[in-house]
């Protein structure tokens, strides 16, 4: 028989035991739920494919120094514009550099940019959106600013910012973050508002929970899943935009082996060196496809309607 302060008739012994039991049960339940989720995910072949592709690219990027047979920056004009060979799996470019190594190191650039932009714009968007959902005045101002930013198409805004800031990988990341924050903020805000409207939030307020507690303990966990899904898509679109910027000469500056740079140089010699277009192109497309499929898969997972 438990007294109201949680201690049993026998004294302090009962409370910790019951608490332990509860924790154990919670762990077991969490474990079960994770297993069900994993099973559901593996059944979706497309998202498994996506995960596999992304993992492969990440591994290639991480182990690039080990796998690549040449230095990506070493120029060797004697060997320029050679086709595929045993020494140069993807051929050489217009300066004699090994395209295979450049593509591998390029993966590092793309993944770094994509990941950083995804996480940062997600976090900043989350904070801005949450704040907007609590305060009417802030909401109006912040959302108008977001609308204005969104009216400028993302690639153009990125190009303009790069023109202002100068070509550098840091600036690419900053530009892309700015470009993506409005969408993230809007998402966070609208999801937060939806959660707030739920009756259980009302119930918690009646029970005396403080606003802060409700915000962090209830609103945030519930909006986290759609945010994570969106971050995956931002990752993908950041890779595309960075490649486009570099292709135009407004992104990561040469001689860095960004996929966009390789494509840019390849375009000038397209009649002779098709390998400079094909390989970075395929890598870009596959990475983006993998991320899109992964994002789709994770989103299907989170959708409570799918049982």
């Amino acid at each position, binding site marked *: 028989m438990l007294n109201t302060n949680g201690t049993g008739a026998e004294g302090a012994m009962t409370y910790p035991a019951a608490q332990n039991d509860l924790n154990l049960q919670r762990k077991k339940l969490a474990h079960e739920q994770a297993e069900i989720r994993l099973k559901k995910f593996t059944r979706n072949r497309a998202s498994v494919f996506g995960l596999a592709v992304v993992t492969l690219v990440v591994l290639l990027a991480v182990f690039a120094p080990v796998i690549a047979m040449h230095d990506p920056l070493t120029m060797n004009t004697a060997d320029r514009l050679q086709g595929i060979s045993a020494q140069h799996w993807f051929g050489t470019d217009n300066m004699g550099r090994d395209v295979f190594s450049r593509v591998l190191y390029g993966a590092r650039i793309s993944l770094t940019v994509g990941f950083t932009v995804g996480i940062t714009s997600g976090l900043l968007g989350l904070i801005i959106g949450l704040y907007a959902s609590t305060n009417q005045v802030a909401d109006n101002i912040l959302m108008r600013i977001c609308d204005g930013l969104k009216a400028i198409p993302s690639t153009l805004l990125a190009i303009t910012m790069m023109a202002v800031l100068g070509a550098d990988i840091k600036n690419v990341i900053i530009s892309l973050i700015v470009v993506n924050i409005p969408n993230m903020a809007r998402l966070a805000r609208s999801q937060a508002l939806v959660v707030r409207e739920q009756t259980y939030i009302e119930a918690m307020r009646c029970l005396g929970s403080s606003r802060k507690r409700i915000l962090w303990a209830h609103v945030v966990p519930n909006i986290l899943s759609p945010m994570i899904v969106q971050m995956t898509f931002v990752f993908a679109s950041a890779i595309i935009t960075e490649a486009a910027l570099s292709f135009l000469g407004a992104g990561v500056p040469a001689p860095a082996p960004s996929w966009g740079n390789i*494509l840019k140089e390849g375009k000038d010699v397209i009649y002779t060196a098709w390998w400079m277009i094909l390989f970075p192109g395929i890598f870009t497309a596959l990475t983006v496809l993998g991320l899109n499929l992964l994002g789709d898969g994770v989103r299907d997972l989170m959708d409570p309607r799918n049982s």
Partner: protein
Amino acid sequence: MRQILLVVGGKVMQKFIARRLLSVIPVVFVVSVVIFTLLKMVPGSPAAAMLGDLATADDIAALEAKMGLDRPLVEQYFIWIGNMLHGDFGMSVVGNETVASVVFSHVKPTISLTLYALVIATVIAIPMGMLAARKKGTGADHAATVVSLAGISLPSFLFGLFLMLIFAVKLRIFPVSGYVEMSRGLWPHIRSLTLPAIALGFMNAALMMRMTRSTLLEVLGSDYIRMAKAKGVRNVALVAKHALKNSLVTIITMIGQSAVQMLAGAAVVESLFAIPGLGQLMVNSIGRRDYYVIQAIVLLIALFNVLINIVVDLLYGVADPRVRAA
């Protein structure tokens, strides 16, 4: 048709339009502020850029005063807005041309390209979406899904490069680059724009096909479709009349969004295929540090975006009576 005109001219519609136009003002304001601020952040003086390396400090200071660059920022903003409303967008770095005339001379190719791409995308996407919805679960549907996924993952310039490689370099059907004006013949004009238009339109075609299919499927599962069937409506009419009209809102949104995305994507595609449109102008201006031109283009496109949104909203009102009443 008569009904559409009745709707557009009616009182409810007029109130709707008025409200919509009003809500646009803050957005336009923010856009202008953002662009103004961005350009002000550029290091170095535009006056110095315009006068070149041989200018003296006095010359530069004089030009700056003339251009109003020594006034407080807020005042500069309003002067800028005022000038634009009078049609004065400043001077381009290139030669002695006004920004307005430079931009104007580059508009036509971009419009041609974007329209062409939009037509390609819509003509492919909507019928294919309808087909995929009708034949859900069959091989045709799966094939369509695969194609659309590929489309979403291939950015326009990448696809353009691949197209160029295959059709221009290897097969030699289309020109690798270059633009032929319409006045020199309709077919050469179209031919020079085909690869770029396909590159630009493919991604959006894929997106639109996916959306059309899912919207139609959702609508076809509705109770009112069942009721229509129960009262004897023919199968064809079920999809083409009942389902389609209910999907119009989504389809209109899609086309509107695609139009804007294409305008932006045109920048890269034009550079790739050497089409002398706004996109290429933009990219070249960055290299030349021709900031007033950049400013004008971005502003133009942003305003166009806003305009498209308004038109789309208006079309919603025509398509769905529930929207009008709200």
